[in-house]
């Protein structure tokens, strides 16, 4: 157990913390994931996916339960569609590197959970799309489209930030 926690505990905790943005709840989720591993290890089927993927799936379910409890869910029915805007300006001419990073960070925090989880898994934890698809329980195409939408949203937010900074 200690070895498995050492290998996967960090990823689970970081994912939970990114999603819930509350350290104590992220700790609780991490603990519950490994307790689930302790109690229901027979449910893990290596033929379906990796252990890390299975653990991420458990973490995700716990995170979503928590989000439902705290009403942090947003509609997934296209309300987050990104409006078509010009994305060809150079933000570096308007914002410093630090400002860009901070703007993207804020943008990630504001993303709907279904887009954020894909971003955290695939971009931050460098998970393969097919593993993310197993962990989240959606087709791989959905992972790609959600990742695209997440990045598009962040780009829009960044553009809005740039526009605000341009104003006197």
């Amino acid at each position: 157990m200690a070895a498995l926690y050492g290998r996967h505990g960090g990823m689970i905790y970081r994912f939970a913390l990114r999603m819930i943005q509350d350290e104590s709840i992220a700790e609780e989720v991490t603990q519950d994931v490994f307790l689930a591993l302790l109690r229901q290890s027979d449910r893990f089927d290596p033929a379906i996916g990796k252990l890390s993927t299975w653990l991420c799936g458990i973490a995700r379910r716990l995170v979503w339960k928590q989000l439902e409890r705290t009403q942090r869910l947003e509609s997934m029915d296209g309300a987050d569609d990104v409006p078509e805007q010009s994305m060809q300006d150079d933000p570096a001419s308007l914002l410093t590197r630090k400002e860009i990073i901070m703007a993207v960070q804020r943008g990630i925090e504001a993303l709907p959970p279904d887009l954020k989880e894909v971003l955290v898994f695939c971009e931050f934890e460098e998970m393969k799309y097919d593993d993310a698809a197993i962990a989240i329980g959606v087709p791989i195409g959905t992972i790609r489209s959600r990742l695209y939408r997440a990045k598009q949203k962040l780009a829009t937010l960044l553009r809005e930030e740039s526009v605000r900074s341009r104003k006197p």
Partner: protein
Amino acid sequence: MTYHDEVTQALKELGEQHRTAGPPPQIEARLRAATRRASSAKRVVPRWVWACAACLVLTVSVWQMTRNRVDHRDGEARVEQLTEFVPIPGSEALPEPVDRVIVRVQMAKEDLRSYGFEIPAPVGKELVRAEFVVGEDGLARAVRFAL
């Protein structure tokens, strides 16, 4: 660079920062404690064993109570199976008592000799239950024995 490129670059940097963060050590400590609790819980006797044990104790208790009741009845029967009152040798010379009480005692058979009874030897320390009729003067008038 376009906004998309900047986002990709920012995500790369944020991802690197993200991966350096580790979980706080208290999670591992709590997990260790939980693992210990779970493994000790596994050693605990399952509930069904406790239920069976409780049933067994109940059955034995009921049986014991029934048995005691039978014994008690037997005891009563034994008390009822008494000999007739036999006058204490020499008590005929005593005045007829006005009040009488029955005193139940358990005594060595050989002590009956002191009351004038002829007890064949050897009797050893064998005990006998006896009921004495005692007058208001404190002197025994008669005795009967439990069989």
